[in-house]
């Protein structure tokens, strides 16, 4: 009997607590991209340490998942900010607008996607076109579209090393993969003669081979780093911050004549880089304490500037002029219009 009462009591208190929580929240809730996660968390921690506000809770849900949660409505049960490693899509923007949400877009910086291998092997230099030929599911050979026949890098171009093509990369659920196929594979497609005639254009270039030369190594980039360290013949695809943190073990491959260095990505010379964003819900500013201050902190020189702490975490900052403009727009919470 007592156990029954206990259970009922607990369930009742659950309902009461749930109702109370829905009415007030004094903590910012952030969702979104796993690529922006290391930066958003660094800002959140610093924000919590230096102000009287509570430290925001940051969830890593992926860009798409984050925007879905973010756009689902106004109200304290919905997140206040979402991070994205790509720009908001017009369909997502419409959902947001229909649900009465005013969005402020903040572009925070760049992230390079690198192809890297162990330092114990030679550095690779290749073009996006060669990268496409190495990784695409179907490639043009003698005017016809065939299953990727290349086994060794040297089969693509004699100047490349005579070793087996073995690339570890993220699975299709990952934002890094999305950006890689869009920037490297699609860009590579354009460089290959006769690809466009065979229908290899835009998203048709996004298919990666499944015959074992490309290995899906899971969402965890650290795992790829460890595998590269153990296997000097293999290459890995991951975000620049992992290369930066493991510079004693790994080297980035030169793509289209540009090395994946901090300077080259910041200057926009390195071809495989993307912009990172976060989106703020205008309706929650002033309701959840600290949102304005959090945006100010994120866009302060001490955080996202060239000497800021986010740079130590691997963020590649916007150019000075852009940073000024984006920062001003963000701090005045200018609404986004698509």
């Amino acid at each position: 009997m007592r156990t029954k009462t206990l259970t009922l009591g607990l369930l009742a208190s659950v309902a009461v607590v749930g109702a109370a929580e829905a009415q007030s929240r004094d903590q910012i809730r952030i969702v979104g991209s796993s690529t922006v996660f290391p930066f958003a968390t660094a800002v959140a921690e610093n924000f919590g340490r230096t102000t009287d506000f509570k430290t925001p809770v940051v969830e890593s849900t992926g860009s798409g998942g984050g925007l879905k949660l973010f756009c689902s409505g106004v109200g304290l049960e919905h997140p206040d900010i979402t991070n994205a490693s790509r720009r908001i899509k017009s369909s997502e923007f419409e959902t947001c607008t229909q649900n009465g949400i005013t969005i402020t877009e903040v572009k925070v910086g760049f992230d390079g996607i690198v192809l890297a291998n162990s330092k114990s092997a030679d550095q690779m230099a290749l073009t996006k076109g060669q990268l496409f030929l190495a990784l695409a599911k179907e490639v043009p050979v003698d005017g016809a579209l065939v299953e990727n026949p290349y086994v060794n890098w040297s089969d693509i171009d004699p100047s490349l090393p005579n070793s087996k093509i073995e690339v570890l990369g993220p699975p299709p659920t990952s934002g890094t993969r999305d950006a890689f196929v869009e920037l490297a594979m699609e860009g590579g497609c354009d460089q290959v003669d006769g690809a466009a005639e065979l229908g290899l254009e835009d998203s048709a270039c996004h298919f990666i081979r499944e015959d074992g030369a490309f290995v899906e190594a899971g969402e965890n980039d650290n795992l790829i780093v460890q595998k590269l360290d153990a296997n000097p013949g293999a290459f890995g695809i991951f975000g620049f911050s992992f290369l930066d943190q493991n510079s004693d073990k790994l080297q980035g491959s030169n793509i289209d004549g540009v090395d994946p260095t901090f300077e080259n990505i910041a200057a926009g010379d390195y071809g495989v880089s993307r912009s990172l964003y976060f989106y703020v819900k205008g309706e929650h500013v002033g309701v959840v304490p600290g949102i304005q201050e959090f945006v100010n902190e994120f866009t302060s020189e001490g955080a996202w500037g060239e000497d800021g702490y986010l740079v130590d975490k691997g963020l590649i900052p916007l150019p000075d002029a852009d940073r000024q403009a984006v920062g001003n727009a963000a701090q005045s919470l200018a609404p986004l219009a698509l």
Partner: protein
Amino acid sequence: MTDIATTVPRPLADADSAARIERRYRQERRFRRIGLAAICVALGMLAIMLITIVSNGYTAFIATEVAIDVTFDPAEVDPDGTGDPAVIGRANFQGLTRNALRAYFPDVSGRTDRRDLNKLISVGAPSTVRAALLENLDWMGTTQTIWVKAGADFDSFNKGQIPRDVPESDRRVNDNQVSWFDQLAANGRVEKRFNGTFFSSADSREPEQAGIRGAVVGSFFTLIVTLLLAFPVGVMAAVYLEEFAPKNRWTDLIEVNINNLAAVPSIVFGLLGLAVLLNLFGLPRSAPLVGGIVLALMTLPTIIIAGRASLKAVPPSIREAALGMGASPLQTVTHHVLPLALPGMLTGTIIGMAQALGETAPLLMIGMVAFIVDVPGSFTDPATVLPVQIFLWADAPERGFVEKTSAAIMVLLAFLITMNLLAVLLRKRFERRW
């Protein structure tokens, strides 16, 4: 393990049958050797796993600390001489700490060099200094030696995880920083000490500041909710199904369903939690309360199945004797059957709890996979749990989190071993055989 093969074979006249017997014994021996080999393989795997984890992780329990002499000048810390801790707490401790470090290297100038120098100590160092001063307000106007955490890269460097003999461009610490660090070390200002922070603080983006307290407390709250829900409901369900329910098609259907639920992937329970608890009932995201309810649903089948098995193990003669003495069915169950079955039920519960402790997938859907700096104080505060913390650290780019990940696994394993040991002890202590 009975000794079948040790019985001495009787001499047989027939040579054929002797050969057959010999073959049978050979088969017997081969079978045993294969069984033994299987155990060796399993133990070997376990040993490899444990050795990898411990060798990667033991360094996380010690941290490199640097001694700095901080001068608490009243004009800077408490210009109005209020002596009020609230005012003192807001002083510029970052400046104080950096000045203290800079005092050793007066010839370091230039913005880049100073930035490099600041990286020798953790960004959490000002907080350490602040806490130390607030505890000893009489330090005002004096200079004190305070041990603060070294920056994460120097912690790794001091532990040999960043090699010294590679070209400067290939390591996270440059030659200047190395020479400064060596200078501090030569003066006895660098020490490896027990890493209390690892047990006393919650998650952080700085490896040297990160700890597991938040995750442990989160796991504790979550498991309390799970236990409070799953144990009474599970026991009641098991008792009713085993002792009172009529045997018909409906109870068969229920039994099949319970067995089925035990095998449902845990992520499904997370989706259920998202759809029902968060979206329908409006419970808070990331809360141990919701996590506990979801994990309770997940562990219920385990507890019910274990409970029914231990009720079945109580011999019918006990029930018959009780009923024969005039006890009602309820009295029979509560006075005789349940006490005898309880050790088995508790064992099942503890094993179910251990399973819940190690679970991450369902928590992903309800927002418990999150970066949370504050240690949760109640059932509705945002929280993570231990396995989630391991997952988050394993995914972090900073080198310093590699050892933290393994150390957190060691802590989780310690909890799991304790719980399973408790289950074994309970069984040994209270189990009755008939």
